C-alpha cells in the first residue's frame, strides 16, 4: 500500500486544549486531562494503531473474510492485532471503571476512534460495535445483565453486534418480522432472519453478544411493538463460564464493495434463547442508545478515511512531477514541476484540508457537548449534541466520501489502480453514507424530529450560542470582515430555511421533507463555518497575547479564510433550493420517469 498516514496529534492537541479548552471545563474528571497526559495516551494509542492495525489494512482488504463450516474467519493478522488492542485496554477507554473501564471522556474516545479508523476501519468496527453493545446494556440492562456482560464487553473478550435489518426491511423497522415468544420471566425464544449484520461472526473473540430487535406476539403494531433482546452466541452459565451454543447460525457472508475485512452476515435465529433488555415494546428507543453513538462514530469513520486520502494525496502532489507551472517572475517554468504547484491541484488539497480540519473540530465539539450532557447532566448540551448527531453522520460522511474521491483524483490514473491504496479508501468510505440509517434518513431525522424536539429548543440553543459568540468576541477588523461577516450572512440563510419549514412544514410535511437533505448539508456547512470562526479567533487571541505563531497556526488562518470564501457561501444556494419546496419535485407521476 502506498498511502501515507501519521496520526495528526498536533491537530488533536490544538483542538482539544486550545480551541475547546477541554481540560479547563468544569466537567467531572476533565481537570486531570492535562496536555502531558493526553499527549502521552494519544502517542501510545497512535503507536499501536500505526504499528499493529495499519500494516494489515491493505492485506485485509485483499484477503477479506472467509466463511467456512458455518464460521467466519477474519484475514491474516486480525486475531493478533485485535488481541493487542484488547491487551492494551483501549476498548474500555470511556467505559465505567465499575466494570473495568478507564472512565475517560467520550471526547478522547472519539479521537481514538478517528485514529483507529484511519489505520484500519474494518478492524475498528468490531471494537466499535462492542462498545455500542456495552453502552446499550449499560443504559438499559438490569444488574444481572450488567454484571454478566459488561466486564467482558469492556475488555472486548466478548464482542457485540446490532441486529435491526431484515431482508424486507431496513429503514422501516416497523415491518420487522423476527418473533420473540416468552418462555419464562425475561426469557424468550427468538425466531427469524437478520441480514447485513456487521461483525455477526468472526474468530476474534470467544463469545458474541447479539442485540436483536424482535416482536413479542400480541404487542402494538409498527415500531411501538418492538422489543430488544440480548442473544449470546454461547449461553452464559451462572458462574460466568460459557455454556452451550445458542440456537442461531450464520447463513452466509456478503461480498461487498468495501470494508472487506469486516464480516457482514446473514444470521438465522431458530428459537434462540434471548433475554429482554429494557422494557417490553421499548426496543427501538433502547436501540437508539446504540445508534446515536454509532452515528457519531460513522461520521468520524468517514473523516478518518478522508484524512488518509488527504495525507496520501498531499505526499503524492509533492512528488509527482507533471506540467509547467507559473514561477514568481510571472513566467512558466521551463521544466515540469510537482503537481502541487498547479492551482487546480491546490483547489483539491484546500477543499480536503479545510473540510477535514473544520469537520474534526465539529466532531470534537459535539463529543464535548455529550460529555457535558452526561457528566454534568447539562440538558442543553445533550440536546444540542443530539441535534448535531445526524449532521455529523450525514454531512461528514457525504463530504468525507467526496474527499476520498478528491484524493483519488490527485493521483490521476494511479488513483484508480488498486496497488496505490486510494481505491480502497473510496470503497471503504462509501458504506458510511448507507449504514446506521441512510443519509436520506438522517436528514429526515434532523428535519422531522430533531428540529422540533422540545419545541425547537436545541436549534434555538445553537443559534443563541453562535449569535452570542459573534457579538461577544472583540476581533480585528480583518477577522471581522473575513470570518464574522460571512458567518452572519450564513446564519441568515439558516434562519430563512428554518422559517420556510416553520411556515410550510405543518401544512404540508412534504415541503419540508423535500428539502431535508439540503438542510442537513446547510447545517453542516454552517456548523463547520462556526468551527473555523472559533479556530481562527483562537489563533488571533494567541497573536494578540504575543505567542509565537508557527507555520501550523499560520496555516489555520489561511485555511479558514479559504473555507469562509469558498465553501460557506453554499448555504445561500442550499437555502434557495430548500425554499423551492416539493412542488416541482413531486409533480411527475412515477410512470413519467
Amino acid at each position, binding site marked *: 500500500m502506498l498511502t501515507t498516514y501519521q496520526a495528526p496529534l498536533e491537530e488533536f492537541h490544538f483542538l482539544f486544549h486550545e480551541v475547546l479548552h477541554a481540560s479547563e471545563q468544569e466537567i467531572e474528571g476533565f481537570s486531570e486531562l492535562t496536555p502531558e497526559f493526553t*499527549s*502521552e*495516551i494519544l502517542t501510545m494509542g497512535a*503507536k499501536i494503531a500505526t504499528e*499493529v492495525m495499519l500494516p494489515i489494512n491493505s492485506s485485509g482488504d485483499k484477503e477479506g473474510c472467509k466463511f467456512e463450516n458455518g464460521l467466519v474467519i477474519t484475514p491474516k493478522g486480525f486475531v493478533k492485532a485485535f488481541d*493487542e488492542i484488547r491487551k492494551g*485496554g483501549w476498548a474500555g477507554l470511556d467505559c465505567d471503571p465499575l466494570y473495568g473501564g478507564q472512565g475517560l471522556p467520550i471526547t478522547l474516545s472519539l479521537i481514538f476512534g478517528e485514529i483507529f479508523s484511519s489505520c484500519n476501519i474494518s478492524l475498528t468496527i468490531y471494537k466499535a460495535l462492542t462498545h455500542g453493545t456495552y453502552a446499550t446494556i449499560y443504559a438499559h440492562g438490569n444488574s444481572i445483565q450488567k454484571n454478566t456482560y459488561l466486564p467482558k464487553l469492556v475488555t472486548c473478550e466478548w464482542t457485540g453486534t446490532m441486529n435491526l435489518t431484515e431482508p424486507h426491511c431496513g429503514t422501516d423497522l416497523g415491518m420487522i418480522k423476527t418473533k420473540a415468544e416468552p418462555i419464562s420471566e425475561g426469557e424468550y425464544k427468538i425466531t427469524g432472519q437478520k441480514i447485513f449484520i456487521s461483525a455477526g461472526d468472526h474468530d476474534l473473540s470467544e463469545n458474541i453478544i447479539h442485540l436483536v430487535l424482535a416482536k413479542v406476539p400480541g404487542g402494538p403494531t409498527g415500531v411501538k411493538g418492538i422489543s430488544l433482546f440480548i442473544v449470546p452466541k454461547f449461553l452464559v452459565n451462572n458462574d460466568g463460564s460459557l455454556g452451550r451454543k445458542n440456537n442461531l447460525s450464520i447463513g452466509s457472508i456478503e461480498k461487498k464493495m468495501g470494508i472487506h475485512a469486516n464480516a457482514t452476515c446473514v444470521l438465522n435465529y431458530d428459537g434462540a434463547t434471548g433475554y429482554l433488555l429494557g422494557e417490553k415494546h421499548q426496543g427501538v428507543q433502547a436501540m437508539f442508545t446504540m445508534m446515536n453513538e454509532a452515528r457519531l462514530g460513522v461520521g468520524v469513520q468517514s473523516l478518518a478515511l478522508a484524512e488518509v486520502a488527504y495525507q496520501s494525496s498531499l505526499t503524492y502532489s509533492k512528488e509527482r512531477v507533471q506540467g509547467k507551472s507559473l514561477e514568481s517572475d510571472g513566467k512558466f517554468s521551463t521544466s515540469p514541476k510537482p503537481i502541487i504547484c498547479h492551482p487546480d491541484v491546490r483547489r483539491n488539497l484546500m477543499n480536503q484540508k479545510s473540510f477535514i480540519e473544520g469537520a474534526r473540530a465539529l466532531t470534537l465539539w459535539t463529543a464535548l457537548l455529550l460529555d457535558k450532557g452526561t457528566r454534568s447532566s447539562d440538558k442543553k448540551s445533550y440536546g444540542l449534541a443530539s441535534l448535531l448527531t445526524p449532521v455529523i453522520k450525514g454531512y461528514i460522511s457525504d463530504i468525507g466520501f467526496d474527499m476520498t474521491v478528491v484524493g483519488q483524483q490527485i493521483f490521476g490514473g494511479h488513483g484508480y489502480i488498486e496497488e496505490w491504496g486510494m481505491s480502497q479508501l473510496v470503497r471503504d468510505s462509501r458504506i458510511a453514507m448507507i449504514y446506521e440509517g441512510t443519509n436520506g434518513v438522517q436528514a429526515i431525522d434532523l428535519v422531522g424530529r430533531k428540529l422540533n424536539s422540545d419545541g425547537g429548543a436545541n436549534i434555538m440553543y445553537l443559534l443563541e450560542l453562535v449569535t452570542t459568540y459573534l457579538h461577544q468576541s472583540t476581533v480585528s477588523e480583518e477577522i471581522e470582515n473575513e470570518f464574522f461577516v460571512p458567518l452572519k450572512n450564513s446564519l441568515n440563510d439558516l434562519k430563512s430555511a428554518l422559517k420556510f419549514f416553520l411556515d410550510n412544514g405543518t401544512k404540508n410535511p412534504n415541503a419540508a421533507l423535500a428539502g431535508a437533505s439540503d438542510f442537513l448539508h446547510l447545517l453542516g456547512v454552517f456548523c463547520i463555518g462556526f468551527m473555523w470562526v472559533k479556530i481562527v479567533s483562537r489563533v488571533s487571541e494567541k497573536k494578540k497575547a504575543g505567542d509565537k505563531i508557527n507555520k501550523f497556526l499560520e496555516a489555520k488562518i489561511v485555511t479558514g479564510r479559504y473555507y469562509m470564501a469558498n465553501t460557506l457561501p453554499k448555504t445561500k444556494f442550499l437555502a434557495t433550493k430548500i425554499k423551492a419546496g416539493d412542488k416541482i419535485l413531486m409533480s411527475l407521476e412515477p410512470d413519467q420517469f
Partner: protein
Amino acid sequence: MKILVPVKRVIDYNVKVRVKSDGSGVDLANIKMSMNPFDEIALEEAIRIKEAGKADEIIAVSIGASQSQETLRTALAMGADRAILVVATDDVNQDIEPLDVAKILHAIVVEERTDLILCGKQAIDNDMNATAQMLSALMGCSQATFASKIELAGEKIKVTREVDGGLQVVEVTLPSVISVDLRLNEPRYASLPNIMKAKRKPLEQKEPKDFNVLVKNRLEIIETNEPAERMAGIKVSSVDELVEKLKNDAGVI
C-alpha cells in the same frame, strides 16, 4: 534485587532525519521523539525478569533535558516502578556525552544499591555504544554487551552475545552491566490502564551536581552531513562480468 534501566529520549526511529542547514547537527524542531528502541528492549527484559519473580524493583533513569520526563512516563507505563530524571541541560539539542552519563549512572547505582544494570547497546541518535562499557569500568564490575539472551541463576547470569562470528555465551557474576541487542525480545506496548496508573508512580527530579558530576562536552562536532545518496544500480549480463565488477570497480573481492 533492583534493576536499573537507563532510557534516552531520541528522535523516533520512523522519522526521516534532516541535517540543519548550518551543518551543526540534525534538526530537532517539531520532530517526534521516542524512547531509544534498544532501551525499550532493556526495559522489557527487566520487566520480564521482575514478572518471573527474580527482581523486586525496576528504576528507570533518564539524563538530558527536562523533556526526557516524557520518556520516563513511558517507562513507568510499560512497567518500571519509579523513575529518576536528571536534568543535565536546558537545551534539547545538547547531547550528554557517554562519560558524564556513566558517571551520573554510577552515582545512582551506588546510592540505590542496584546489582543489575540493563541498558541498550547504543542510542540510535549518535550510535556511540560506550555508556555501558564505561559504567562497568567505573563500577569495577563485570559486563556483557550485545545480549540476545539473558538467563539468571542466583548470583550468576548467562548471557548470549551477538558477535561478528555468531553467538558467544558468557557467564557474569552480579553486580553487572549488560547491554542488550535487537533480538533479545519484542517490547510490549504500554497499556492504557498502566499509563493511567503510571501517573501516580514516583518520578524524582535531580541535577548532575546532586551527584557531584560536572557535565561538560569533551567532543566537538565539526560538521554533520546527509548520507550520500544511493547511486542507481546497473544490470550485468553475465557472472563473469559481475565478478569482474566486484573485483575491479567495487574492490570487494
